[in-house]
């Protein structure tokens, strides 16, 4: 997904409600995907994303246009997810199939469902910081410098988190495939 037209961000910043709605429309699915993977259930994820956009609206006047809007948005979203993780961590993070709305419209495939569940289980088993770094890097496609601005962590630490996350996922899911 390409970055949003900055004129929309500028209009939203000036208080244009239609432009803000366009921002929400544009980024909602991506934010929801990140939050679902971070928090492990769609209800908490929805809450985190809704909170994020309300907070984005309230903080738009502080948004510095030298910063990529996407990075800024994900910083707020990541904060919301982290804040909610206290609650979330007290429940199982394993995503139950059917919890994640799916828009591919494909017929149910038992193997695909099982594979998806295994991925979600492995992802949920990652330490939160590694999961976050992995998602920002490989799913959201962000550069390490941007990830640093989002997470507050250094580039080398983030690279290590991503590397460990990849190793863990590979190991866990290779075992599943062999079984």
């Amino acid at each position, binding site marked *: 997904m390409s970055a949003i037209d900055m004129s929309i961000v500028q209009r939203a910043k000036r208080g244009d409600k239609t432009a803000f709605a366009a921002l929400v429309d544009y980024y909602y699915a991506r934010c929801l995907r990140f939050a679902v993977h971070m928090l492990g259930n*769609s209800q908490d994820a929805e809450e985190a994303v809704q909170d994020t956009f309300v907070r984005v609206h309230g903080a738009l006047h502080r*948004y510095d246009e030298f910063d990529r809007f996407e990075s800024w948005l994900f910083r707020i979203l*990541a904060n919301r997810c982290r804040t909610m*993780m206290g609650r979330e961590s007290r429940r199982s993070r394993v995503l139950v199939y059917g919890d994640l709305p799916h828009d591919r419209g494909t017929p149910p495939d038992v193997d695909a469902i099982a594979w998806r569940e295994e*991925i979600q289980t492995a992802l949920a088993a990652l330490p939160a910081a590694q999961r976050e770094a992995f998602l920002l890097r*490989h799913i959201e496609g962000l550069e390490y410098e941007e990830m640093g601005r989002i997470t507050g962590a250094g580039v080398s630490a983030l690279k290590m988190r991503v590397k460990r996350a990849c190793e863990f996922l590979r190991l866990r899911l290779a075992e599943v495939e062999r079984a």
Partner: protein
Amino acid sequence: MRDDRDELLDRIVGELKVLPAVPADATARVLARVDAARRGQAPAAEADDDDVIFFPTATDEMQTVPAASRPPSGTPVDAGAGRGGWRRRFVVSIPVAIGYALAATVAGFLIRGAMPRSGGDATVAKEQQTQTDARAVPVTAVSGLTPREYQEAPVAVQFVLDAQRAKRVALVGDFNAWAADSMPLVRDSATGVWSTVVNVTPGRHVYAFVVDGEVWTLDPRAPKTKDADYGTEQSVLIVGLR
């Protein structure tokens, strides 16, 4: 972007990249909440929303209790109603710990988080009903030690976890070598709240709860840090000298 991706990782990433379906009213709900916030009917954005929080880069870094939830130093905070009664909640921090120490030294009082079992308020916030809640509360007891021994003696700390559905809860921390079977919490049958009191030496400690033998649970009221070697999150307790 690919880093060290291979076929397996590509398949994992491909699965995780699938975008979820967005509820049809998602944007409308955001706009309604924005309007409500503008009218003062809902919490507005906070000043530090776009500052990075949590996951400290320095493994030993203390987390700061958010200003919005921070009580005046040393002041017990009414946690609101619980299922079985009201409780006092203490946020453990250095000033608070020092406050406890001074209070115990000067007055020799027993300081303890109170947990009456009845008289609850029926208007319980949904979050408070559903959240697992935990806290560590220093409780000090005066004994006949030399001033220095007294000052450095272990302090009784009450660890509390509100885990209504848990079948068993254990406390693990650097003070018990992370042994999950050495410090079980006891459930209060009236409130469903789990607790235990442990003597902890003054200083900085890290701990967590293990629920039902497998769910690693942090104390939401305590600062968090990360284990330097494994990256596991832990709660932080500061016990001040008495």
